[in-house]
C-alpha cells in the first residue's frame, strides 16, 4: 500500500461527502413536492406525463396500493424488455445484425435489469443491438433506480408521518426521481464522460489496420449515455463484456474517480434526505457513518490483500512489488481497483474495473462479503437506505432487549408485527443465496460451468447467487452463466432478492405510518450517537457472520491458506 494510493481513495470519498448535504436537500424538496430550480423546465413535462397516463398526482396511496403500482410498473417493464430482446433481429438500430436473444437469456436479462441487478450472462458487444442497449437496458437503468428511490422514500415517510394512512404516490415518486434527479445528472455526467474519452455514436464498430498490417475490429456504440445512468443508478450493467475495465467504458483516472463518485453519490445523499424528512439530520449522518465505517475498513482489507500479491506467482519470478495485476488495468493499478471493487459491492452497483475472479482469496472475499452484508454501504439507490433502516430497527430491538424496554425508532414503537416483517425481509437473502448455491453444487451440469477448480470453484457459485439475490450484478466472471440452469435460477434469485425483500418492507412501512409519533423521553435510546453507530455496525457484521461464515470458510478462506502453502488446482 502506498500514500499515493490512499490519497486517491481519500479524494474519492471527500468528493462524495461534500455533495451529501446539497444533493440530499434537493432530493428532500423533490419528494416533498416543493418547487426546485428545475421546475420551470420540467414541470410541464411532469404534468403532461401524469395527464397522458391518467394519474391523479394529488391522490396518495396506502402501502398496498403503492406496492401494487410498483409491481405493475415493473411487470410492464419486464414484458417490454423481454419482447425487445426476442425481436431485436427484426427491429432497427442493429448494425452488427445480431440474432434474437435466446429465451432463457432474455428472461435472465430482463429480470436482471428490472430488479436493478444488471447481472450479465452475455457479452454486451457481441449480443445486444443498439436499440436494446438504449430503449431497453438504458430505460430500465433509469426506472429500476427510480423504483428503488421511490420505495425508500415511502419508508422514510412512514417514519416522518404520525398516525397517517398513506405513504405517497408511487407514480409521482417514480416520475419525479427520474425527471428531477436521474435524468439531469445523467445528461451532465454523460457529456463529461465523452470528454474523458468514452465513445457516443450509433456506429457499431470500426476496422483499423495495425502497424503490422493486421486487421482489428473495434466495437463502438452509444457508451457514455448508458455509462452515466449505469453509475448514477447503481445498475452496473456494462455496454461491453469487460464492463468498466474496458478502456471505452473507463478511459483514465478521471473517468474512474467520476465513476466511483457517481455510483456513491445518490445513495450517500439519500441518508441526508432521510434525516431531513424525519426532521433530524443527525439520524441521517449516523446511518452514513455506520455505512462508511464498514466500507472503508473493507477497502483497506481489499487494498492490502491485492497489494501483497500472489505468492504462487512471486515464486515464479513475478515482482511482488506491483501487487496482483492479473485481471487489472495498468491505468488503475491496485489501489483504484481495490477501491472500485469494495464500493461497487458495498453499493448494489456491480460494475467492475477489474476482474474479481482473479483477485487474491481475501481480496475477493471483500466484495463477496459486502454483497452478503445486504449492500447497505451505502447500498443501491434507495435499496441501500431501506436496507439500512431494516438494520436500524433490528439494532434498536436488540438494544431494547438488553434493557427490557419496548424499542422505539424515530418515535415509532417497534412491536411484534414490525419485527416479524423485518426478520422476514432479512431471511430472504440467505435463503436464496445459500439454497441455490447448495443446489448448484449437487448438479453435475451446473459444475461444468466452473472456470476454476478447488475452493475457488465454490466461490464462483457462491458469488453468482450472492450477486443475483443481492441485486448486485458483479461476478466471478469465469463461471459460464449463460446456460438454462444458471439463467433460470439466477433470474429467480434476483426476483426473490428484489421483490421478496421489498414487499415485507412496504408492509412494514404501512404498519409504521399508522403509528403515532412519540416524543422522546429520558428513557428513549438515542439513535444519532456513536454508541448507536457502533451497535449498528456490530449487528450488521454479526448477522452476516452467522449466515455466511461456514460458506465463506469453505471458499475464499480455505483458498487463502492453500495459496500461502503454494497449492494450485
Amino acid at each position, binding site marked *: 500500500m502506498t500514500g499515493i494510493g490512499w490519497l*486517491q481513495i481519500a479524494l474519492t470519498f471527500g468528493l462524495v461527502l461534500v455533495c451529501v448535504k446539497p444533493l440530499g436537500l434537493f432530493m428532500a424538496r423533490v419528494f416533498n413536492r416543493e418547487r426546485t430550480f428545475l421546475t420551470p423546465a420540467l414541470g410541464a413535462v411532469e404534468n403532461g*406525463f401524469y395527464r397522458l*397516463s391518467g*394519474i391523479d398526482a394529488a391522490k396518495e396511496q396506502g402501502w398496498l396500493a403503492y406496492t401494487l*403500482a410498483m409491481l405493475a*410498473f415493473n*411487470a*410492464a*417493464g419486464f414484458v*417490454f424488455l423481454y419482447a425487445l430482446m426476442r425481436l431485436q433481429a427484426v427491429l432497427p438500430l442493429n448494425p452488427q445484425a445480431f440474432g434474437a436473444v435466446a429465451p432463457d437469456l432474455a428472461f435472465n436479462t430482463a429480470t436482471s435489469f428490472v430488479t436493478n441487478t444488471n447481472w450479465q450472462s452475455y*457479452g454486451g*458487444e457481441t449480443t445486444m443491438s443498439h436499440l436494446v442497449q438504449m*430503449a431497453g437496458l*438504458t*430505460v430500465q437503468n433509469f426506472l429500476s433506480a427510480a423504483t428503488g428511490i421511490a420505495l425508500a422514500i415511502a419508508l422514510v415517510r412512514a417514519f416522518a408521518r404520525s398516525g397517517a394512512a398513506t405513504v405517497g404516490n408511487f407514480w409521482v415518486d417514480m416520475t419525479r426521481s*427520474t425527471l428531477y434527479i436521474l435524468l439531469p445528472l445523467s445528461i451532465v455526467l454523460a*457529456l463529461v464522460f*465523452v470528454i474523458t*474519452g*468514452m*465513445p457516443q455514436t450509433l*456506429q457499431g464498430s470500426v476496422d*483499423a489496420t495495425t*502497424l*503490422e498490417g493486421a486487421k482489428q*475490429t*473495434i466495437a463502438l456504440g*452509444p457508451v*457514455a*449515455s448508458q455509462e452515466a*445512468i449505469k453509475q448514477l443508478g447503481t445498475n452496473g450493467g456494462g455496454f*461491453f*463484456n469487460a464492463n468498466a*475495465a*474496458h*478502456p471505452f467504458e473507463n478511459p483514465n*483516472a*478521471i473517468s474512474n474517480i467520476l465513476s466511483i463518485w457517481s455510483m456513491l453519490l445518490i445513495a450517500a445523499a439519500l441518508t441526508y434526505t432521510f434525516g431531513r424528512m424525519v426532521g433530524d439530520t443527525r439520524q441521517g449522518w449516523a446511518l452514513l457513518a455506520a455505512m462508511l465505517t464498514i466500507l472503508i475498513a473493507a477497502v483497506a482489507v481489499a487494498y492490502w490483500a491485492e497489494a501483497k500479491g500472489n505468492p*504462487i506467482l512471486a515464486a*515464479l519470478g*513475478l515482482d511482488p*512489488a*506491483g501487487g*496482483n*495485476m*492479473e*485481471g*487489472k488495468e*495498468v*491505468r488503475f493499478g491496485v489501489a*483504484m481497483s481495490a477501491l472500485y471493487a469494495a464500493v461497487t459491492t458495498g453499493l448494489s452497483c456491480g460494475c467492475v474495473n477489474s*476482474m474479481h475472479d*482473479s*483477485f487474491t482469496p481475501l481480496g*475477493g472475499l471483500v466484495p463477496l462479503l459486502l454483497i452478503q452484508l445486504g449492500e447497505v454501504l451505502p447500498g443501491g439507490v434507495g435499496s441501500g437506505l431501506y436496507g439500512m433502516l431494516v438494520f436500524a430497527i433490528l439494532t434498536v430491538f436488540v438494544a431494547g432487549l438488553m434493557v427490557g424496554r419496548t424499542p422505539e425508532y424515530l418515535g415509532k414503537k417497534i412491536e411484534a408485527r414490525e419485527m416479524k416483517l423485518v426478520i422476514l425481509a432479512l431471511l430472504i437473502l440467505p435463503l436464496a443465496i445459500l439454497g441455490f448455491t447448495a443446489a448448484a453444487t449437487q448438479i453435475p451440469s451446473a459444475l461444468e460451468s466452473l*472456470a476454476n477448480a478447488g475452493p475457488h470453484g465454490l466461490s464462483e457459485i457462491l458469488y453468482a447467487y450472492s450477486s443475483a439475490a443481492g441485486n448486485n450484478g458483479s461476478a466471478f*466472471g469465469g463461471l459460464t452463466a449463460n446456460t438454462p440452469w444458471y439463467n433460470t435460477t439466477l433470474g429467480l434469485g434476483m426476483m426473490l432478492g428484489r421483490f421478496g425483500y421489498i414487499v415485507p418492507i412496504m408492509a412494514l412501512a404501512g404498519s409504521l405510518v399508522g403509528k403515532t409519533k412519540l416524543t422522546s423521553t429520558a428513557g428513549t435510546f438515542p439513535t444519532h450517537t456513536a454508541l448507536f453507530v457502533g451497535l449498528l455496525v456490530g449487528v450488521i457484521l454479526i448477522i452476516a457472520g452467522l449466515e455466511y461464515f461456514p460458506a465463506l470458510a469453505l471458499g475464499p478462506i480455505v*483458498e487463502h491458506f*492453500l495459496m500461502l502453502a503454494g497449492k494450485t*488446482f
Partner: protein
Amino acid sequence: MLAYLRPAVVLLALMVALTGIAYPLAITGVAQVALRGPANGSLIERNGTIVGSELIGQQFASERYFQPRPSATSAPDPKDSTKTVDVPYNAANSSGSNLGPTSKKLADRVKEDVDRVKAGGAALVPADAATASASGLDPHISPDTANLQVARVAKARGVPEAQLRALIVRETEGRLLGFLGEQRVNVLKLNIALEAPRS
C-alpha cells in the same frame, strides 16, 4: 389490478421515449458535433488509414515493436462456431482471463511469460508484464515493462538504446496532479513514435 394497467403501460411508453430514445440521441447529437474525436473512439489515423484507437490495446508480434501485456480475449473458432480460439486484443470481444489465484492454468501461463521476459535479461519481471489485463485490451504497460524491451527493439531496428529510452521517457504518461492514476506508457503511441520519421 386493471386500474394500475393504464398508468403502468403509458408511463412506461413515455419513459422509453424520454430516457431510451431522446436522452441517448440527444447526447449522441451533442457529442458528434462538439466532441467528435472521443465520441467516435479516439481513433488514430496515419497516412489516411485508421491504425487503431488511442484507448484500445493492440497485439504486436514483431521484434521491431514494443509489445503489450498478455491478453485473454478470444473469438469464435472459424472452423467450429461453438468453440472459441485465443485471439489476443480482440476489440470486438473484451474479456479477462478470470483465472483464480490458485489456478494451475494461471501459474503455467505466468511462468511461460516470466521465462520469456527473463530471457531478455530481466532479474525481476514487473507485475504487469506477465499478467493479463481485465479487459484484454489494456493499451498501457508500465515504464519498467517498456524499458525491459529496449534491448530487443534496439537490436531489431539497429538504433541506439539511449534513443529508445529517451522515447519511453517522452511517451510516459504521469499521474494527473501528481497522484491520480498510475505511471504508464501507451504501447500503440510508442510504436507510432518509433515509426515517425526522424526530425
